[in-house]
């Protein structure tokens, strides 16, 4: 019988990627829910009286914007934990960064699907009404957040700067959400999350939308776990390169660091 030395056992047990048991379970659940979404969104749910089949765009449009809002709120919460926590944890900063990246991608999906729907229903891709304009501003703000994360500086500097911005730009979300109530816009008001409790939505349409929201929430969890682990690895590689550069500099200067 061979015995494995403790060190070897430790090395072989290290994860080879960013996947874990939890992410694999979430991943499978996501695939199952997306299959359900396709079934309900494309087959089982009815066409709309006025919009026809283009109403099906809603089953991607609304869950995407939900995911983006969720991602930006996670970014804000992590930013607050980083800034006001005693440890000033870099771990939560990386979750904030990962979450914002995912949010930006899904904000783009929201804009793209919305423009396609608008072309079919309104007759135009884009108009500078209150909802569309504030949404564009939100999208651009988070691209700015990501740009700030890419600036020169230490990891702590990056975390602090971006946390401040992350807490500021999240304030645009209520503005976007209520823009359709505050001002007259071309975009319709919220159907499900409106202020009146009377939901003017066909039963199967509402259920399809619900499936979409669950599917996209799981997708967000899966993406944010993988991406924040990837960002941790990138930071570790950065640290290692810095160590190496310091050693090289010392060697050039002939300093013995024994």
């Amino acid at each position, binding site marked *: 019988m061979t015995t494995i030395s403790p060190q070897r056992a430790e090395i072989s047990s290290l994860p080879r990627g960013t996947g874990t048991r939890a992410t694999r379970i979430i991943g499978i659940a996501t695939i199952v829910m997306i299959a359900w979404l396709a079934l309900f969104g494309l087959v089982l749910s009815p066409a709309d009286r*006025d919009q026809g089949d283009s109403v099906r765009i809603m089953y991607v449009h609304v869950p995407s914007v939900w995911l983006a809002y969720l991602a930006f709120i996670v970014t804000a919460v992590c930013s607050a934990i980083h800034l006001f926590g005693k440890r000033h944890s870099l771990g939560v900063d990386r979750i904030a960064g990962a979450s914002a990246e995912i949010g930006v991608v899904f904000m783009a999906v929201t804009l793209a699907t919305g423009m396609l729907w608008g072309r079919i229903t309104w007759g135009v891709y884009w108009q500078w009404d209150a909802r569309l304009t504030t949404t564009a501003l939100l999208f651009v703000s988070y691209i700015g957040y990501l740009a700030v994360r890419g600036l020169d500086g230490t990891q702590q500097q990056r975390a602090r700067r971006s946390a401040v911005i992350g807490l500021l730009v999240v304030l645009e979300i209520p503005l976007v959400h209520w823009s359709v109530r505050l001002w007259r816009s071309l975009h319709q008001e919220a159907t499900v999350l409106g202020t009146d409790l009377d939901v003017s939505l066909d039963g199967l349409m509402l259920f399809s939308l619900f499936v979409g929201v669950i599917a996209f929430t799981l997708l967000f969890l899966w993406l944010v776990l993988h991406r924040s682990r990837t960002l941790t690895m990138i930071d570790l590689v950065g640290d290692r390169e810095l160590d190496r550069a310091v050693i090289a500099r010392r060697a050039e200067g002939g300093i013995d660091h024994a």
Partner: protein
Amino acid sequence: MALSDGPDLTPSPPSVGGRRPRRRIMPMVVLALVLVSGGVIITQALSTAVDYYCNVDEVGVRSGCDEGRRLRLQGTVAEGSVVTGTAATMFDIEFNGESVPVEYEGEPGGIFRECLPVVVHGVFDQSTGLFLGDRVEVKHSEEYVAVNDERLTEAEAMACQPSA
């Protein structure tokens, strides 16, 4: 090794032929682009005002909805009023009991039909009182109704419903 005791502050002698510190340009470029596009978005929004449209009954009543200026007019396409000519489409839009005749050059896009609320961009012809539209957008409501909803008869589905 002193590495684990925080940053090493001993000055290192100038290196010979060492690499210049890499200045990252991309984030700066992206940041500048973001600021510029943010500015463009805000000015675009202000140039078309924050409220997207005037309702038909507000012409000459509400500030910013004066008859002489270019307007975006919101109303429901009146039942049976749509006349498609060779060059123009004529229809009436109504809101809150008031009605305005519209002449639109061409065929409206989107899901345009009677009984749906629309936003027409254009100006009033001062002599005839006709609203000359150059763009029509269908303003979809937040209501979603299945096409084959058995609770609605065909006639009910096609008739103009009072807007909520």
